């Protein structure tokens, strides 16, 4: 009888059920989409923050001091220590390799530029542009094009295996050189493939594939420093602790948290004779920006949840309010309060489950759309979230209906049947 009552109620009042169901579906859609966006926004913004540049720097452990003013390297060539280029792919073998979005080695060398019978001392910076690197079975592309996205080239980027160079913007203006020209650098004829604009010291330099710089320096495989771009967790007091003073489990927890410090520590372990450190200008500030944006989205998610709950409550209250005459009839036929309430609650649960499932799917699509149009990447919803969302939907529907149901079961059948309410 109970099941039949509920079934008939759905069959005969399709329009009303559709209305209430639509409200629940919409509410759940918004909730799901917002939760999906909120859980993923940290990662997405973190990736956007990587456009500000690398946040970790690896240097040789026993290096002499950098002597560089205004992009001109005054350090004697060959002085100081170098890292080995062959060690670099090991960066992708560290514990947090999935958090490392790219790395770029740099090797500045001093060169002389001959032009129209004049010579000029310059810095040639050897680097990766978009180099194919493999570690184990993993293949990936890395270089300045991913770690230094603000570098702009008029012309074409040189190939990493080529002997083409980029001219810094100011240098190109001074030499009145353009892409396609040839320059004589330390006795070599090199083709200029493009003009580079970075807004900093590279504008006065030559930038070339690292192999060329190593050849000029006469040290194959040498790398002066490596910029690493990693997705990190905002720093807290725990992150700043010294790993050497930690006991086993605490150390494991520190080691397995993606703090800039612990990733630097792992990089240092991976690359022999190296010293890795966070670039504080980038690493410190991104934590602050990230925390603020995450806080903001959290607030908005709360607002979305609240608005959805309110909408569902309002729709449910309206749906029940309309059916007072029915309640009167049921009560006149001898139904107790419990029976009436349980019918309403059963209907609410059913509506919540159906609306919840449809809303979850729609919310997933919506979140994907938001991810694709704003971040050019997917926002996926873990299916684990479905029971949580359904539970929220049922709870909100119940709370929304509770007041109306309470009113309905208290109804005196006489008034309801006389149509005087």
């Amino acid at each position, binding site marked *: 009888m109970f099941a039949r009552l509920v079934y008939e109620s759905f069959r005969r009042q399709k329009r009303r059920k559709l209305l209430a169901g639509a409200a629940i579906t919409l509410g759940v859609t918004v909730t799901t*989409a917002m939760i999906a966006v909120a859980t993923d926004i940290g990662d997405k913004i973190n990736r956007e923050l990587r456009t500000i540049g690398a946040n970790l720097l690896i240097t040789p452990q026993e290096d002499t001091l950098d002597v560089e*003013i205004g992009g001109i390297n005054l350090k004697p060539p060959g002085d100081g220590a170098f890292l080995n280029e062959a060690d670099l792919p090991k960066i992708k073998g560290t514990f947090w390799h999935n958090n490392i979005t790219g790395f770029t080695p740099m090797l500045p060398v001093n060169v002389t530029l001959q032009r129209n019978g004049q010579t000029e001392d310059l810095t040639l910076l050897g680097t990766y542009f978009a180099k194919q690197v493999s570690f184990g079975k993993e293949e990936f592309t890395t270089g300045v094009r991913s770690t230094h996205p603000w570098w702009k080239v008029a012309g074409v980027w040189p190939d990493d295996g080529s002997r083409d160079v980029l001219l810094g913007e100011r240098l190109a203006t001074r030499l009145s050189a353009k892409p396609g020209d040839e320059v004589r650098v330390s006795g070599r004829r090199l083709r200029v493939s493009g003009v580079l604009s*970075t807004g900093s010291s590279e504008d006065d330099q030559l930038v070339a594939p690292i192999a060329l710089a190593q050849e000029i320096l006469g040290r194959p495989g040498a790398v002066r420093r490596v910029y690493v771009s990693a997705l990190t967790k905002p720093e807290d007091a725990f992150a700043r602790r010294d790993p050497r003073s930690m006991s086993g489990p605490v150390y494991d927890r520190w080691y397995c948290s993606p703090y800039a410090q612990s990733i630097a520590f792992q990089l240092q372990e991976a690359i022999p004779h190296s010293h890795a450190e966070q670039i*504080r200008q980038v690493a410190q*500030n991104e934590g602050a*920006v990230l925390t603020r944006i995450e806080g903001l989205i959290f607030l*908005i998610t709360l607002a979305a949840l609240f*608005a959805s709950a*309110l909408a569902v409550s309002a729709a449910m209250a309206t749906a029940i309010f309309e059916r007072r005459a029915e309640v009167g009839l049921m009560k006149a036929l001898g139904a107790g309060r419990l029976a009436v309430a349980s019918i309403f609650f059963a209907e609410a649960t059913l509506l919540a489950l159906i609306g919840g499932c449809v809303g979850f799917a729609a919310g997933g699509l919506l979140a994907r759309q938001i991810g694709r149009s704003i971040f050019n990447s997917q926002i996926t919803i873990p299916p684990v979230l479905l029971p949580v969302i359904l539970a929220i939907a049922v709870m909100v529907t119940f709370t929304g209906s509770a007041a109306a149901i309470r009113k309905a079961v208290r109804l005196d059948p006489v008034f309801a049947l006389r149509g005087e309410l």
Partner: protein
Amino acid sequence: MTENLSHSEARSAQEVAVSRALSPHSSMFLRMLVRAAVLRRGRALSALFAMVVAAAVATAMLNLYVDVQAKLRREFRNYGANIILVGKGGASLPAGALPQVESVLAGRGVVAPFALVVARTSDGQPIVVAGTDFDRVRQLDRWWSVSNWPSPVPTSRAEDAREMGHPALVGVRALSVVSPKSQPFDLNFQGHTIHLTPAGTVRTGAAEDSRIYLPLADFVAWTGVQGSTIEVAATGSPEEITAIMHQLQLAIPAADVRPVRQIMEGEARVLGKTRATLLASAVLIILTAALCVLATLMGWVFDRRRGRSPGRGRRGDWIRSRYRHRSLDWPG
């Protein structure tokens, strides 16, 4: 009251009709509205509540949307300078450049001057030494991790300073070269020697770690080299910053004004994405809030459509009250 009644009775039916026709029509409309609200207090209140909440949520969202830009811009200024002024062709900036930059900015940012030379340590190693204004750097480069900022030496103790050494801020990597035991050390620049004492260390993870920083006045007195770089962290929208750069170029023609593209582009990207996400969320939330109002109003309309006018409702009230009164006597 009786007088009034008798007066109206005295009027002819025609007069009554005329007066009714002339009386404002809105009165009936208002009466219905007020009655409806009074008689269905709960319903009206819930509709009002829904609307207030919807309006509040919508306002909060729009507010947040506008406010977030300002908040995030402030956060991004902690990344330091977004404009750099350097002397054209590597020359020093004119002496009055700093006050000029400040007057152009008019409080819309932080400015710090820098001067750089390569000096030699007592054993002949080259090292970059910079002169700057520590108070300004503290505000501009907040990410500098400094153990202790050198405090200026009062003029009365200038003699002591010469003996003890001028306080300097030493980069962590430079410290191990010049003063591994934090002892005072000498630096040499073109035959002039300065006696320094490490007052604190700076760690940034970048070029600053291999440098030594001095107060600009000590630096100029020692090397005779004037400031060559001014770093500016200007606040405002991209358009405002472009305008500031233009004004700076006009005010100081001897300087090359460059944007720090790395910071400006990153900021624009993150801000744009955050705003887009916020806008999408705001639209969703406002839609939901509108749905809430719609559901409430729809309930109200359904209710009214049944033809239960306020008048009938009133009769119902009356019957109900009578009935309820009687039901008290009934057993059970």
